[in-house]
């Protein structure tokens, strides 16, 4: 908006300058000097931050206008309402009062200058009023936009939190379920062990009186215990999911599903010892992959996405890469910041490269 006012000022100045120059038979040099001074004084307003200095500059320009009017050329008075209006522009709540004040000098100037003066004062006053209105509106609009943006951001964040919470709880639920199952089995086997214990107790009490019977009972108990131990081992082994199995097979499943749903071919490769990846790291890997896939789907126009997990000596590397159009300058969205934050929680880093296709690499250190 400042620009609009400056332009208006320039137009007025040019009008004055040309009127004076085109008038024949006048010494132009003083006028030009005065105008240069006026420009210096008036435009230094935009250089200063302090209100006092600004006011001083404005008063100086007003004084220059009056001096110019008195000594050089009556047209200089046209620059006066500008200074008055600008001076009162920010201080007055009522622009109309500023307008009225700017009209006051009219009574003190030459009669033939009056109409022009009134015209300039009114037009400029109108302009300043409009600018003030506009500024006010703009400020409120900005404020509204800000609050809207904030709301949006917090909503997105909450959505994100919900989402990940949901996923996490589903995952936890599964694990809990399995634990419970193994617990139950354990309990059942506990019963058979109790049975064996009772038989052994009986054998102990029969040991003196009837050794044959006792031996038989003991043999029985040994058998039950042996079976029990064996079944514990078996059931535990069957039921308890291996961590690696959860991780890589879950990813595979998810990717297949994704490929089927979105008609994008996906390739999953992995290298190294998957056992070294902790459950927490699997969770990060899964979430980051998910985010990268969503991004690829949304922006890349890719037809193929490759996911690679490599376990190095001290690092785990997840790379999700597509063959899409990539990107030259990356603007970090919430998704990428989310990935970075997740990785940072495990001391990891995220590298994003958009030069040939789009690739998101997550590096996680292996905890020892």
């Amino acid at each position, binding site marked *: 908006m400042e620009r609009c006012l400056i332009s208006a000022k320039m137009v007025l100045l040019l009008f004055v300058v040309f009127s004076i120059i085109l008038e024949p038979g006048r010494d132009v040099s003083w006028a030009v000097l005065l105008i240069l001074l006026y420009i210096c004084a008036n435009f230094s307003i935009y250089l200063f931050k302090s209100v006092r200095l600004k006011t001083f500059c404005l008063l100086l320009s007003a004084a220059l206008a009056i001096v110019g009017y008195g000594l050089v050329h009556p047209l200089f008075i046209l620059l006066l309402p500008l200074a008055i209006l600008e001076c009162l522009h920010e201080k007055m709540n009522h622009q109309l009062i500023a307008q009225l004040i700017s009209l006051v000098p009219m009574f003190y100037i030459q009669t033939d200058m009056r109409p022009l003066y009134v015209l300039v004062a009114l037009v400029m006053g109108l302009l300043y009023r409009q600018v003030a209105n506009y500024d006010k509106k703009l400020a409120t609009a900005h404020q509204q936009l800000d609050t809207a943006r904030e709301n949006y951001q917090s909503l997105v964040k909450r959505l994100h939190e919900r989402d990940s919470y949901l996923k996490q709880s589903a995952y936890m639920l599964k694990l809990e379920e399995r634990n419970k199952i193994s617990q139950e089995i354990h309990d059942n086997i506990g019963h058979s062990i109790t049975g064996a214990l009772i038989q052994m107790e009986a054998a102990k009490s029969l040991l003196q009186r009837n050794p044959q019977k006792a031996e038989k009972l003991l043999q029985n108990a040994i058998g039950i215990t042996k079976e029990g131990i064996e079944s514990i081992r078996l059931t535990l082994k069957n039921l308890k999911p291996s961590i690696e199995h959860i991780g890589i097979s879950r990813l595979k499943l998810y990717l297949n599903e994704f490929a089927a749903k979105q008609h994008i071919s996906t390739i999953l490769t992995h290298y190294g010892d998957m056992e070294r990846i902790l459950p927490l790291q699997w969770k990060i890997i899964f979430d980051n992959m998910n985010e990268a896939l969503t991004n690829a789907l949304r922006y890349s126009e890719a037809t193929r996405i490759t996911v690679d997990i*490599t376990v*190095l*000596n*001290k*690092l785990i*590397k997840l*790379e999700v*890469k597509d063959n899409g159009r990539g990107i030259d*300058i*990356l*603007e*970090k969205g919430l998704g990428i910041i989310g990935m970075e934050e997740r990785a940072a929680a495990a001391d990891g*880093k995220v*590298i*994003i*490269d958009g*030069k040939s296709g789009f*690739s998101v*690499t997550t*590096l996680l250190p292996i905890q020892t």
Partner: protein
Amino acid sequence: MHLQKCVSFFILKMIRLCMKRVESVNILEIQDLTKKFGDFIAVDHMSLSVAEGEIFGFLGSNGAGKSTTIHMITGLLRKNKGTIIVLGKNSEKSATFIKRNIGMVPQELAIYEDLTAYENVHFFAGLYGMRGKKLHERTVEALKFVGLEGKEKIYPRNFSGGMKRRLNIACAIAHRPKLIIMDEPTVGIDPQSRKYILDSVRKLNAMGCTIIYTSHYMEEVEEICTRIAIIDHGKIIAEGTKEQLKSLITDSKLIVVDVKSPEAVDLAAIQAIQGVSNVQLDDQTIQIHTELGVNNLNHLIAHFIQNGIEIRSLDEREPNLETVFLTLTGRNLRDA
């Protein structure tokens, strides 16, 4: 009386020296440094520290954010976020102090072709507040250091590329900075000048300067740097000595031995040699995986000789920083 003065002076100096030691462990500390150019994030929440006496390498491809980081340290660019502490002083509060103690060798030649070699160094060193005889001595010293003595009165336009590069360095060191930052000082010069420059870096380091050296030439960084940060897309993705960096991706190296009669080799015996983690027979060659940092080459060779097996060739495949970079980022240092 005189003796007393001497002693007290000496003690004071000792105390000050000790304090200095304690204070200046880290000559440079950067925390959460961020620089944006519009939407482009050139340096992304970077944190690192450089200890006194190090030759610290910034390794990364072109446009990774090395130069931007350096420019923020030297005060050429304003940072958007984060803190920079040089010699224990904050860059915002003690800009002049920091500037006095830093010397930078810019990536491009930054010399005046219309001033002689002597005048160039003299002018730039003069900006650091020296004058008269001292300025002259330092100028001569710096020119001598880079091997341009006797060429003081020659205009740089008559210099070879390597000599210009050396003059470029002389302009940055004449004021004896504590921290010297070299931004790709060896771009586009002949091998001889490159060697000369690398030697001068070592010499400067031996004289007590801490050096930050950026390059996208992996060999240089590997050769001279005591510690290295791999930078990509404005982030430090790995940091440490070159051994530490290599150990990130693997803990073994591969020794490939091509022998005349592979069937005669006793794989189990080789496996038993110290440091060997795995031995495989692959077609005509024996592939021996060995722990990094264990030198067992002599033992291996001795084994083959003792058993009368003729070695046709022996190839030691150790991971280098290039491999590290490639593995971590999926890209080569030179392209991208």
